[in-house]
């Protein structure tokens, strides 16, 4: 599962808001939830209500000290703020924010900035190769043994068998016993006459 990120967008222009949301939609790797804020007077109130992880904000429409204020109000120092720039901005303005995106940034650039802010691991550390034990499990599954029978045969608990099966499905992206059969045969784990499925 990718990390859930609640993103508040405070931008009075509807066209720009819709545009940003559409660009965020194209960032597939992230699980993004959107809070739209059109009226910047409502900003603090809405942000406190929903406590976003990130807010993208038009710096010209709001108080520059908004980041600190929101963090205090929500009691959460980890909330990130990103300035949304329509044109060039001086560094003095930008130092109030964690980062900034320009309306000319590509989806790729915006994605990288968000990933950097949240330190999202892009690579999930699942080793893709099957372990010896997992291969043993596959062999028994395709022979038609139940989880209980496999557990008894390999001297492990049913729970462990289920964990192995879950990991196998995640690594191979094969969920059905008949799919595993093809895998097992292609990789010479079993012969056709041994399999049930």
């Amino acid at each position, binding site marked *: 599962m990718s990390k859930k990120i609640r993103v508040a967008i405070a931008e009075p222009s509807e066209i720009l808001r819709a545009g940003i949301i559409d660009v965020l939609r194209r960032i597939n790797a992230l699980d993004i939830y959107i809070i739209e804020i059109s009226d910047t007077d409502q900003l603090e109130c809405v942000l406190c209500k929903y406590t976003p992880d990130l807010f993208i904000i038009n710096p010209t429409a709001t108080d520059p000290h908004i980041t600190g204020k929101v963090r205090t109000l929500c009691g959460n120092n980890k909330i990130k703020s990103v300035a949304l720039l329509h044109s060039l901005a001086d560094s003095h303005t930008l130092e109030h924010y964690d980062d900034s995106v320009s309306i000319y940034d590509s989806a790729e650039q915006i994605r990288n900035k968000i990933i950097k802010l949240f330190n999202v691991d892009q690579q999930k550390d699942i080793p893709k190769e099957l372990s010896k034990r997992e291969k043993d499990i596959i062999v028994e599954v395709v022979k038609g043994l139940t989880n209980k029978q496999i557990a008894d045969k390999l001297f492990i608990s049913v729970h462990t068998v289920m964990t192995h099966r879950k990991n196998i499905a995640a690594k191979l992206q094969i*969920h*059905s016993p*008949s*799919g595993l*059969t*093809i895998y097992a*045969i292609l990789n010479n784990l079993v012969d056709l006459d041994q399999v049930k499925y």
Partner: protein
Amino acid sequence: MTDKIYKLGKYTHADSMSDLICNNYTMLLVLSRFGISLGFGEKTIQEVCNQNGVDEKTFLAVVNLLISNERDETSVFGHDSIQCLLDYLHNSHSYFLDFRLPSIRHKLISAIDTKHDNAAKAIIRFYDQYVDQVHTHMEYEETTVFPYVRSLLSGIKRGDYNIRVFCRQHDNIESKLSELKNILIKYYPPGNVDELNSVLFDIFACASDLASHNFIEDNLFVPMISQLELNVKKQ
């Protein structure tokens, strides 16, 4: 990022049928399921539908739903539309069961390297089991759901069934086909590459076509029938 030109908004009865098809070639499949053949020249969608005895409203509802993925909540459908959609769904079932799936099986057999004889057998077995599942899935609709809808159309509401039952157990039938695609792509050793590619293209297209078919059932057929149930109850 796309360099494809697309129509903003929905297709209407006054649009040209050939524009619809040329801009969305997958709609070819929709045409044949409505029993419309090619060669319609410059005729509009309305003219072509009238000529072929197809309910224009149903036709537009199907193509617009497939193209935009957005349901038009405001549409109200009469009995003719429901009958037309039933025919459409029935034709889709025949297409998958009698043409598409057998044709993929045929190509699969010739694409699989005979050097991996056992694997080939396992793959065909997997595929046949999958086709059996699709048969069961579609047969349920043909023998239970459609007769139920026909009796509703004649004004009879049977007490023992409603469309929500169908809705709840209507699972996606394309996921196992995707699994086969995965296995072939990730684990199949080099064989006859061109033939294998060709069958993979077919499997990709068929999986997405099955997903569209289910999408129409969930988002057009089910709401239509719920509405019909309410109307029959009121009478």
